[in-house]
């Protein structure tokens, strides 16, 4: 059974003339012990998706199923709620500055697990140990820790209730390079020990390639391509995915970028054109892209693309079937 299943997710902020569609029809599946990366540039809707998936925001429409249960209908059910946790982007902000490390990690255990189930204190020490910190950190506060240590504490807090799904929202973006790889290693190790599923939000393709089993690329609120990690990096299909991969510099001075892959910048989601949202920057733009929204169709096994220019019979069939 799939762990997480997102169906037809829409999320719109505001209403009327000033409404901003952040997520426009996203479908996702994530299995136990699997890592799905959600990549894209600012404003692509990956963080909004993450917030809805974990229950911090309500979907405008669509549903989030966790082990088959609708998360947003069962938000006050602790047994459902404790299954989805999150690690945030800014470790210095995600810990309450007034709380000690011990109190921070213990909070979910006290509030979400049935009272008296085991000794909370011992579980906190154990959680600290699993993220590589000793019990001497229990009494410290967030400002006394380095960025890497703060993020370890945040990971311990997310894992203390043994959730099956952890959303990682750019967990390494604000860490130094040398700390970053250790946090990634820790996350991998914890996953193999506990079979926890990761929804990994990132714009850092290097880390994505290292951590993810599958990758979904988002652009202006829609998934434009989704494939197993190596296949996506080696054989990207969507013109935006290609540009994104080409734009990221590689840490090898002998393999430099020679061409700028893409002109212009992501337009505002408030003024989306009819048809494909990528049309104005796309090198392969076609008349049909300006009138019809392409749909995510399989281009090969496990590899879905949302583009008319990619030669999949299904994409063309999608146009012929009329306005969907």
């Amino acid at each position, binding site marked *: 059974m799939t762990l997480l299943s997102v169906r037809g997710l829409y999320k719109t902020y505001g209403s009327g003339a000033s409404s901003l569609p952040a997520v426009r029809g996203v479908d996702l599946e994530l299995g136990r012990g699997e890592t799905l990366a959600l990549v894209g*540039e*600012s404003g692509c809707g990956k963080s909004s998706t993450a917030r809805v998936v974990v229950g911090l925001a309500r979907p405008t429409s669509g549903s989030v199923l966790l082990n088959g249960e609708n998360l947003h209908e069962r938000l006050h059910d602790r047994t459902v709620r404790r299954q989805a946790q999150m690690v945030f982007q800014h470790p210095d902000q995600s810990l309450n500055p007034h709380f000690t490390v011990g109190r921070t990690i213990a909070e979910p255990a006290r509030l979400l697990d049935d009272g008296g189930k085991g000794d909370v204190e011992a579980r906190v020490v154990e959680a600290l140990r699993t993220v590589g910190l000793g019990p001497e950190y229990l009494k410290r506060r967030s400002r006394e820790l*380095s*960025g*890497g*240590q703060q993020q370890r504490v945040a990971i311990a807090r997310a894992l203390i209730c043994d959730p099956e799904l952890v959303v990682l929202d750019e967990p390494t973006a604000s860490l*130094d*390079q*040398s*700390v*970053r*790889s*250790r946090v*990634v*290693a820790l996350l*991998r190790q914890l996953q193999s020990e506990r079979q926890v599923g990761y929804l990994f939000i990132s*714009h850092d*393709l*290097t880390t994505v390639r*290292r951590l993810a089993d599958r990758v979904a690329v988002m652009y202006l609120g829609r998934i434009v391509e989704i494939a197993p990690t190596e296949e996506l990096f080696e054989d990207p299909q969507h013109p935006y995915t290609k*540009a*994104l991969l*080409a*734009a*990221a*510099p*590689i*840490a*090898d*001075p*002998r*393999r*430099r*970028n020679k061409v*700028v*892959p*893409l*002109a212009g*910048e*992501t337009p505002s989601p408030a003024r989306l054109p009819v048809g494909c949202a990528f049309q104005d920057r796309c090198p392969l733009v076609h008349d049909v892209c300006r009138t019809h929204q392409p749909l995510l169709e399989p281009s090969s096994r496990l590899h879905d693309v949302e583009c008319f220019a990619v030669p999949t019979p299904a994409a063309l069939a999608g146009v012929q079937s009329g306005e969907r």
Partner: protein
Amino acid sequence: MSLLDVRGLSLGIAGREELLRDVNLTLEAGEVMGIVGESGSGKTMTALALLGLLPPSMEIRSGTATVEGRTVLEAGARRVHRASGDMTMIFQNPRGALNPTMRVGAQVGRVLRVVRGKTRAEAAAEAVALLRRVGISGAERVAKAYPHQLSGGMCQRVVIAMALAYRPRVLIADEPTTGLDVTVQAQIFELLRELVDETGCGVLFITHDLAAVADMCDRVSVLYGGQLMETATTVEMFEQPKHPYTQFLLESLKPEDQQGEVQAADAGVDFSLPGCRFAHRCPHVFDRCAAFPPLVETNDKHLYSCFLGQEKSLDAAQCSRSV
């Protein structure tokens, strides 16, 4: 004579420990030199010191810097007069780098007026031309816009246009693409490369991103805890790093299963210690590391600051040498 020559630069908060110790840098015309370091390595402090923009609490303890032989920095002096056209800097957070109540054309034009002595009309016309030059379409319209009406990438282009108006011999770019999308970053990098080719200026490219260094720089200097660890051409740095810190940094880029045994503790820098700033994290630390290591030259373009591998210390170092 190098275009920019920084010698023995040391900085600190007045009355406290040294945050930057004995840093030496050279930069040639038409060259892009990367300055890499993690947060707190002193890379931005170095740049601010060169421009005389240090916060009031910081003082220059020792060192000199020259641009084409003209002194631009001296120990003790808060601010040395900068001949116009010597050196300027672009920053991260481009939106904040522009005055929110001034039209962007006027901000570019102001540099032309106060630095290059243009009249108001000349400056206005040339500002539009510069905006066009940095790849802004509809430059006339954009010149009349306020910064909040432009995207981050556009704002950075405007700041680059201001730098172009200044006509610097040396351009310092401090994390110019942090916070910008990766596709926009590629555009800005491309623009900077074009400008170097066109004007022949030298660029000090400050970043924490090794991939960006590999992409942009001809040579690299690695800073850690205010100490210059290693300077080399980019290819040599990536392929034959000498300093344990550089080795460690490059190892961390690889997937874990391919990482070598170079490991280092995760700890902050103690600026009050007299020795090598990396000593407390270094897997090869030995007794001589309690003293400050001088720069050693392996060939004319490759220098590093470590006692390891120095002939005289082999006897002492052999016990821990493993890479």
